[in-house]
């Protein structure tokens, strides 16, 4: 049995949905007859249900399954854990290729270090004030 309410308005939905039990229906209908507030609520909610029920049918796009299928396949390719056997085979090759790359890099660096150091051309530094260039300073006056 539905618990009694103070105003009865919260039974309106259940009444409209035919979800009140026998005794509750009778009690609610008595209330409905005597209460304009409940009558108004009932009419308003009936309209709301009718408006919502009149919303047009919505259908999925024609190619819904095809798109879904592509998406699932893409995910399976991107997630190696789904093909664990393949992953188990791939791991040793991945480790091996990393080791090869590191070895080649180390050999290259060692060969570079062993090579004769190139002569570094040093820039000739000329002390300031001894450039031999003419100075703007006034020359001493000859007696």
């Amino acid at each position: 049995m539905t618990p009694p309410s103070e105003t009865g308005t919260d039974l309106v939905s259940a009444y409209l949905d035919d979800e009140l039990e026998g005794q509750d229906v009778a009690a609610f209908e008595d209330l409905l007859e005597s209460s304009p507030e409940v009558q108004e609520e009932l009419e308003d909610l009936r309209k709301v249900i009718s408006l919502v029920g009149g919303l047009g049918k919505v259908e999925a796009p024609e190619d819904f399954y095809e798109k879904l299928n592509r998406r699932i396949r893409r995910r399976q390719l991107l997630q190696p854990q789904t093909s664990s056997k393949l992953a188990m085979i791939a791991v040793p090759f991945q480790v091996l290729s990393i080791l090869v790359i590191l070895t080649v890099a180390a050999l290259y660096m060692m060969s570079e270090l062993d090579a004769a150091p190139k002569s570094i051309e040093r820039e000739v530094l000329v002390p300031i004030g001894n450039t031999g260039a003419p100075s703007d300073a006034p020359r001493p006056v000859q007696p």
Partner: protein
Amino acid sequence: MQGAAKPQPAAPGAKDSDDAPAPITERAKADARDRQLVVRLKAGDQRAFEELVRLYQDRVFALSYRMLGNRQEAEDLAQEVFITLHRAIGSYRGEGRFYTWLYRIASNTCKNRIKYLRGRHFHKSVSVDDTPEAQAPAGEAGPGVPLQSRVHGPEAMTEGNRLEAAVQRELAALDPEHRLLIILRDVQGMSYQEILRITGLQEGTLKSRLHRARVALKDRLKEHLS
């Protein structure tokens, strides 16, 4: 790719009463068919998956669309629901009806997506392409009378579409829990028993929450009720 035949999904919304034997028989048949498809899918038969998708894609898409109010998001979300189904089918133990389980996945995915989109300040939109004539003939509408047919005269379609857009907009503005209950009950026409199984709510909670949801929608649609 040529899809499987498109059989009709089980018809929820038929009351669980003794005086309606035909829907119960149909439902039993649909349940048996779903069980077989699930068994085949669990055995790795991808054709069974395709059949399940084609059976339920419209209803899952419709639920997503009514929850989000945006076709692109709805399509993405509906795909996500079926991907979850594909991944989690092994954990489905066959207790209860299959579509109840699928709807549970769909409603949880919808609520999570709404939370995520709120965080990104997603604004719901109802575009011109979302008007009913772009979707399906008016005669195939939900349990109620199509909104276009309520307005007469040359402006019927435009006015009907405007009304539908307003209802969709206000519906999508409700609290997600309220939205879900109204969609399941008033748009998709499910029975209380079906909604209880999908949402896991207690009966009293469902009744009071559904009522509050309708009152909230009534307040939002006040100008259209006269």
